[in-house]
């Protein structure tokens, strides 16, 4: 292969020129976020507008998502006080889910969360919510004390353990929360790019390679379904961890 070789996909493929204008707000990820808000709103307004005792299919689907978040993420994790956190958890779950699934929707085909800024913004929300909940419940001093000082340990050991506990709650948790979502979406999208761009490149080559490109495209399609699973799972994990952190902040002791 002389001349132009295969150019593998890289992180440069994740940066887009603005579709219209020169403003950064006109880029594809930002527009996808806007689209997700519209889609989620329309779906849930439509599914709850004509609420009936015998639900229509649309209502059934909407209520299915809601009751999933409410029961398996809210009630089971947070406990008796779960109700006031449901709006936050529900919004978080549907927002992340919708933006992730954009990764495998034809034409859109870009998971918004593979730009690290978006998961970081969501993790900041979670961070403020669970610390605020904890501080309101226990008071600032007791909350920090509960976090930093594990009971039943000799005093001099605290010198080693306290910084680690503090770092866990205030730095590592939000960082891992956003990085996990970002890395999964980034890697998944890159994987799909490898197979589709590889297949496309094989098409420009000899006849044998053209036949072999079927496998590459086939893999891309198969992996898209695999990605769909990962995307749902990551939306679930993000919301589950938020709920677990809130539950931890509400608990009497850590």
């Amino acid at each position: 292969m002389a001349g132009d070789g295969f150019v593998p996909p890289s992180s440069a493929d994740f940066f887009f020129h603005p579709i219209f204008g020169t403003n950064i707000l006109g880029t594809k990820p930002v527009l996808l976020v806007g689209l997700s808000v519209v889609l989620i709103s329309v779906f849930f307004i439509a599914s709850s507008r004509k609420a009936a005792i015998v639900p229509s299919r649309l209502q059934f689907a909407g209520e299915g998502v809601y009751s999933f978040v409410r029961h398996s993420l809210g009630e089971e994790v947070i406990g008796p006080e779960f109700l006031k956190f449901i709006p936050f958890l529900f919004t978080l779950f549907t927002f992340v889910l919708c933006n992730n699934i954009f990764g495998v929707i034809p034409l859109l085909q870009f998971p918004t969360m593979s730009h690290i800024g978006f998961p970081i913004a969501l993790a900041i929300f979670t961070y403020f919510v669970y610390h605020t909940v904890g501080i309101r419940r226990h008071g600032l001093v007791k909350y920090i004390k509960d976090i930093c000082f594990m009971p039943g340990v000799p005093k001099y050991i605290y010198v080693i353990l306290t910084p680690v506990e503090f770092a866990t709650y205030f730095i590592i948790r939000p960082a891992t929360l956003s990085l996990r979502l970002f890395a999964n979406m980034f890697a998944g999208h890159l994987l799909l790019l490898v197979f589709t761009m590889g297949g496309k490149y094989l098409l420009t080559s000899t006849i044998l390679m053209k036949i072999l490109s079927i496998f590459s495209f086939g893999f891309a399609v198969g992996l898209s379904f695999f990605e769909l699973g990962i995307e749902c799972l990551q939306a679930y994990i993000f919301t589950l961890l938020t709920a677990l952190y809130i539950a931890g902040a509400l608990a009497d002791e850590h």
Partner: protein
Amino acid sequence: MVKQDDNAFWTILAYLISGLAFWGGVGALADHFFKLHILVFVGLVVGLTAGLSLIWLRFIRE
């Protein structure tokens, strides 16, 4: 319960990372300050010990 296992898994991971990151970082800074190359390893060992003992205190002791 499944949720508790999930919680344990992510908490254990977070403890290990932050133990290593914090004390490893302190060790690296001390190395830089004293022009040595050994303290970062001491820090990592201390951090790992701290992380593991927090896991033990949190999950196994009870």
